[in-house]
């Protein structure tokens, strides 16, 4: 298991370094193959580790392996250690498996781009960073991985750096993530101060045994939540995710759907003892998840960019996961993470096929009627959409409803609010997903879409490197949910049971009841969308509501006014009042003073030998006098 894990972690790193060092000595195709292979080798390693762990008793499935002591400062000792347990194994499989498929897809999607090698290097780097995050055996390594995925995200969002919008989006993502990182770091500082270590075991023990005071536990949990919220694009740190769609579609699929944005959920599940020691914060996580779920759902109703709809959908679904983690249903939250990874990646990659087919068109108003010209894409997209809505027996059904059932089991005011909200969210999901599907694939083709890209005339909807991953993901979206059938078998939940014991266990009756309601609402939403589509009107009529939704509830404007403008004003003021006159001026004055001094001194060099000789003689006379006097 250890060996497999190390292979899993290091293979993408090796791939990244190889592409980096080879530079232009390898062709672009070779860079793509290298990157894909390295990720799949990582997947093989993860599989090996997984099967090894599967064969063991549940108690023995967790292992901590240390490479060397990385940091030693006084009493704090941090080792370069990996923690391989069921939770990390799940993430490893998801990251390398789905990551591998997406990198394979990229080979076809990014073909012809000038800077393919850079792209594939970044992809391998991202996979490595994400693996470091999930395999980190202590909080510090987790933070390292956390920061590195933020970096990878920045690099990949801004991949098309000649586009100003892409660069701006990358900066936005990075800044907001940095805010989350800072909160995370503050939590860690507090942990070091109070507990003296960043090892998982030590910190969790302290949290469980009540060693940490309530205030400390709350603060630490808040810091952790802050980081999770920023990374997972939950309200209030969510504004970066829609803009992040400036990156290439496979990047959106991998980073902003399947893996990086789910890191927040992983964090909460991993550090759940801390959250359990601060239940208010845990409930806060659920509430934030609920708010995000609803807000993202309604905003998705007015988006015209195909990728933005899917982005808001991602935000909404992660809201579900936060709800799950917030009530203590860690297993179900992770379950939804896995199924969501499948169908969201599928949706993005299928959207990528559409965009590729239409030579870069992303506005769904200019699409339509692609059902006949892109049959394969249509089918897979439909599978993804239905999985997202939660139609049985597709995967989304099983996982989403499990979370909802947990909120029902939680009970109390919080539980009921979450339950109702979650069901409304199911309705919204039906609405926006079907709206998207219908506008893209049904109806009359838009005028510009009549002539598909000439290149694709001969290889159908896309090269095999693109269609195979989509097919695999479609299959996964369909069947992955069968890992948790309430009342029948739930291997997934059992797998994670020892690592993250759920706080609530819904009964089978609650689960089937919830499922019934959720499916009904989802289908209702789908039907409403169908009707609106048939009538040729939008779901949200024009007016104040629509304008607000189109401006994403004015969040960007709010942050701009409250943070961005004052920040810039302060920077400009500091520059004008302090830096230019004092710092720059000080340096200027020093230089000028030196020049003036030099000019004054050089006046003594008249060039006349006579004066020089006179000066020497005078000095001799003075010296003689001095010697005479001092004697």
């Amino acid at each position, binding site marked *: 298991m250890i060996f497999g894990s190390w292979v899993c972690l290091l293979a993408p790193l090796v791939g990244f370094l190889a592409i980096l060092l080879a530079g232009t000595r390898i062709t672009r195709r070779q860079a793509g193959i290298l990157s894909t292979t390295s990720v799949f080798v990582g997947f093989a390693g993860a599989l090996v580790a997984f099967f090894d762990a599967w064969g063991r008793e549940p108690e023995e499935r967790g292992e901590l392996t240390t490479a060397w002591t990385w940091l030693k400062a006084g009493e704090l000792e941090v080792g370069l250690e990996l923690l391989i347990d069921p939770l990390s194994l799940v993430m490893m499989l998801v990251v390398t498996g789905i990551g591998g498929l997406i990198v394979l897809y990229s080979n076809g999607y990014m073909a012809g781009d000038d800077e393919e090698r850079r792209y594939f290097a970044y992809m391998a780097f991202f996979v490595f960073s994400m693996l470091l995050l999930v395999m980190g055996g202590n909080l510090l390594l987790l933070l390292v991985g956390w920061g590195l995925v933020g970096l990878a995200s920045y690099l990949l969002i801004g991949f098309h750096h000649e586009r100003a919008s892409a660069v701006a989006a990358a900066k936005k993502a990075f800044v907001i993530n940095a805010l989350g990182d800072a909160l995370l770091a503050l939590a860690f500082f507090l942990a070091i101060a109070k507990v003296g270590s960043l090892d998982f075991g030590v910190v969790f023990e302290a949290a469980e045994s009540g060693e940490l005071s309530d205030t400390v536990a709350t603060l630490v949990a808040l810091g952790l939540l802050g980081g999770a919220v920023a990374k997972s694009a939950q309200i209030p740190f969510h504004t970066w995710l829609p803009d992040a769609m400036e990156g290439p579609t496979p990047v959106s699929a991998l980073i902003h759907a399947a893996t990086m944005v789910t890191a927040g959920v992983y964090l909460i599940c991993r550090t759940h003892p801390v959250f359990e020691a601060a239940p208010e914060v845990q409930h806060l996580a659920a509430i934030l998840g609920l708010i995000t779920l609803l807000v993202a759902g309604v905003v998705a109703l007015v988006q015209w960019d195909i990728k933005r709809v899917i982005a808001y959908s991602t935000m909404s679904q992660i809201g579900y996961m936060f709800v799950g983690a917030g009530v203590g249903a860690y297993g179900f939250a992770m379950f939804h993470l896995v199924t969501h990874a499948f169908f969201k990646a599928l949706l993005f990659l299928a959207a990528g096929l559409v965009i590729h087919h239409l030579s870069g068109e992303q506005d769904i108003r200019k699409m339509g009627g692609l059902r006949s010209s892109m049959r394969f894409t249509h089918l897979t997209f439909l599978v993804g959409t239905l999985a997202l809505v939660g139609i049985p027996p597709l995967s989304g059904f099983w996982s989403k409803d499990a979370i909802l059932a947990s909120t029902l089991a939680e009970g109390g005011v919080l539980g009921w609010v979450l339950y109702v909200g979650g069901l409304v969210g199911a309705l919204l999901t039906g609405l926006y997903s079907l709206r998207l599907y219908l506008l893209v694939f049904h109806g009359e083709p838009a005028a510009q879409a009549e002539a598909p890209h000439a290149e694709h005339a001969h290889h159908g909807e896309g090269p095999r490197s693109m269609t195979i991953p989509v097919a695999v993901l479609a299959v996964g979206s369909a069947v992955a949910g069968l890992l948790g059938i309430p009342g029948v078998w739930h291997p997934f939940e059992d797998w994670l049971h020892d690592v993250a014991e759920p706080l609530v266990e819904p009964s089978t009756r609650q689960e089937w009841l919830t499922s019934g309601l959720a499916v009904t609402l989802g289908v209702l939403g789908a039907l409403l969308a169908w009707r609106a589509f048939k009538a040729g009107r939008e779901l949200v009529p024009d007016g104040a509501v629509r304008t607000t939704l189109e401006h994403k509830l004015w969040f960007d404007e709010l942050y701009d006014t409250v943070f961005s403008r004052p920040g810039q004003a302060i920077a400009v003021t500091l520059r004008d009042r302090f830096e230019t006159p004092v710092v720059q001026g000080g340096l200027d004055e020093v230089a000028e003073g030196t020049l003036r001094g030099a000019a004054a001194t050089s006046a003594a060099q008249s060039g006349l030998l006579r*004066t020089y000789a*006179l000066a020497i*003689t005078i000095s001799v006379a003075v010296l*003689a006098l001095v010697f*005479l006097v001092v004697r």
Partner: protein
Amino acid sequence: MGNVVVWVIWLVAAAACLFTGVRVVIATSPFSSALSLIGNLASLATLYLLASGEFIAAAQILVYAGAVMVMFLFVIAYLGGRADAPWAGGTKLIQAASVVTASALMAVTLVAVMLDAGGRLSDESDVDRAFGSPAEMGRLFLTDHLLAFEITSIVLLVAAVGGVVLGMRSQAEALADAEEAAQP
């Protein structure tokens, strides 16, 4: 009686020394200056003799007056009228300062000498006949001061080379000469 004679000779030589020294500095024509310097060297040689420096006196006449001054006179003859230049240089202030400085230097040194005149400076040692002789000089040069001896010879060699180099005709001059010779 002998003492008086020595004193008289000494005073005459000293007076001649100072007089010719001043003349070197004041004379308008370089020729006069050079001749005055020769006189100065001769009076100095006398003073050396009175101070038991026989070899030095002889070397002074041979080397200084005989070789160096002759060199000077050759150059002055070569330069002819070009050697004449305005008497003093520099601004009035610098001239005044120069005189003052020189006087100050003289005053300080004289004071220093006079302060010790009665003490250490009057404690002359007795010397034998070998003092100041060439044999003694040679012995010292070849034993105690061998390094100075060798280095001095190198310095002279360098100076000789330098003199030759400085005296060489430049390229331009050689070309001009060749042109002149080519023209009928």
